[in-house]
């Protein structure tokens, strides 16, 4: 029993370390866009759309708010925090839901409309933003009516999509390392690959958890 327990802790510790590492990388990426400038980093190849009055506000809202969505990853999955410091869980939850519903998802949808790579990647990013908004909203509504199980399921899905910021970039790095594809080819691929496996993993996890529950193998 202790063996299983320490195995799980190792897994948790590994996940936390990975989150720390990738959050640090994401912070560095986000800080490229501080202070505001219309022609840095990614914007260097968006010069055909930056003249739209709505583009740069949406872009900057997205990059300046989205980083904070990784922070709940450190608190919201902890049973201890939920039971011993519920105020922290609620505060982080409010931050997470507010940032996604009011800022990150709508701005993500708007910049997704003119994403590089044409229709395939535009569809992917807009769908991602839509589902992100939807799952987060459903998770919020579930807890407001006291449905903890649904709250948990929807926010797991939502966070899986939040992690696409990391997984998209990791896939890109890996595919370039492996195959050296053309830059927009890889972009169109990771626009989908960045979030669909994440979502599938959560659905699979929830599915097996339900199965365990039904057969009574869960504590």
């Amino acid at each position, binding site marked *: 029993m202790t063996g299983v327990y320490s195995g799980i802790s190792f897994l948790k510790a590994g996940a936390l370390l990975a989150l720390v590492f990738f959050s640090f*990388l994401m912070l*560095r*990426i986000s800080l*490229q866009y501080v202070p505001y400038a219309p022609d840095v*980093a*990614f914007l*260097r*190849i968006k*010069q*055909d759309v930056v003249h739209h009055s709505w583009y740069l506000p949406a872009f900057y809202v997205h990059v300046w708010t989205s980083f904070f969505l990784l922070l709940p990853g450190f608190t919201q999955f902890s049973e201890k925090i939920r039971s011993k410091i519920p105020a922290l869980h609620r505060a982080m939850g409010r931050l997470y839901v507010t940032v996604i519903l009011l800022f990150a998802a709508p701005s993500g949808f708007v910049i997704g409309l003119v994403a*590089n790579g044409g229709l395939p990647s535009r569809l992917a990013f807009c769908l991602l933003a839509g589902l992100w908004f939807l799952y987060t909203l459903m998770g919020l509504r579930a807890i407001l009516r006291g449905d903890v199980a649904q709250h948990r399921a929807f926010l797991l899905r939502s966070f899986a999509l939040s992690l696409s910021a990391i997984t998209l*970039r*990791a896939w*890109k*790095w890996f595919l*370039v*390392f492996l195959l*050296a594809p*053309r*830059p*927009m*080819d890889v972009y169109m691929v990771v626009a989908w690959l960045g979030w669909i496996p994440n979502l599938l993993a959560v659905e699979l996890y929830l599915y097996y958890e339900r199965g365990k529950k039904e057969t009574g193998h869960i504590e």
Partner: protein
Amino acid sequence: MNRCMYCIFVATLLSSCQKSSPERMIGTYVGWFKKTDSAARAAARDNKINITIEAVERNTMRGRSIVAGNERPFTGTFTAQGEYFQVNAAEPGDDRYDGSFSFLVKPAEGILIGSWIPNKPTATVTRTEYTLNRTEFTYNPDRDLPRSLNWFALYNEDASRLHDIDFGGELLTEDVSRFNASKVLLKKEDVENMHKGDLEVLRNSIYARHGYSFKRRKMRYVFDQIDWYVPVATDVRDQLTDLEQKNIALIKRYEEHAAAYYDSFGR
């Protein structure tokens, strides 16, 4: 018939007159500047050289050479050898790569053949030999990057044996020959899906059409292989057309983006 014979006679007379005229040496001659030392050949690749004879007087002449982005004047003397001219000329001597030329000019054939010896030989700067052809350089925006060239092999298969050039793991593909960046105003969609290696050569093809002599070894290696490429100047910036300047700015943007982000976790 008589009249015809007369014309031929006069033409022959005139051309034989011209043959003995040293002014006929004046012109631009281009070809490979070949190292004769095997160690030097192994250390660095040969370059295309341009030797231009600008003026001749009784028995003196002057001109300039351009090779690997280095433009140097020279002055010398010549002697007539039948229809040919033997030239001995020296560069000023204040550049560490200066040396002296000894070549034979065959005006009728349009050939310049000879050797060059550096004042201060080093491991890579040694005696060279060359057989150059007279070339008229004119800027021509219609010159395309040839599709027939095996672009992929240039950076990939050749890379293993070309220790003197750092390709930085970049890819060069046939995509590079899709556009003529001196004729077509490129759009974002044209360049955004190109490898950095392709973008770099596409941008530099604009300079190559103007006869820019590349200082960068990698670009010399690429453009020296292209028939129409003639190095004639070390700065062509003031000759670029508006369209070319716009294309250069666009391509540069994507090159820089690729350099910063293509193989990294980020942006």
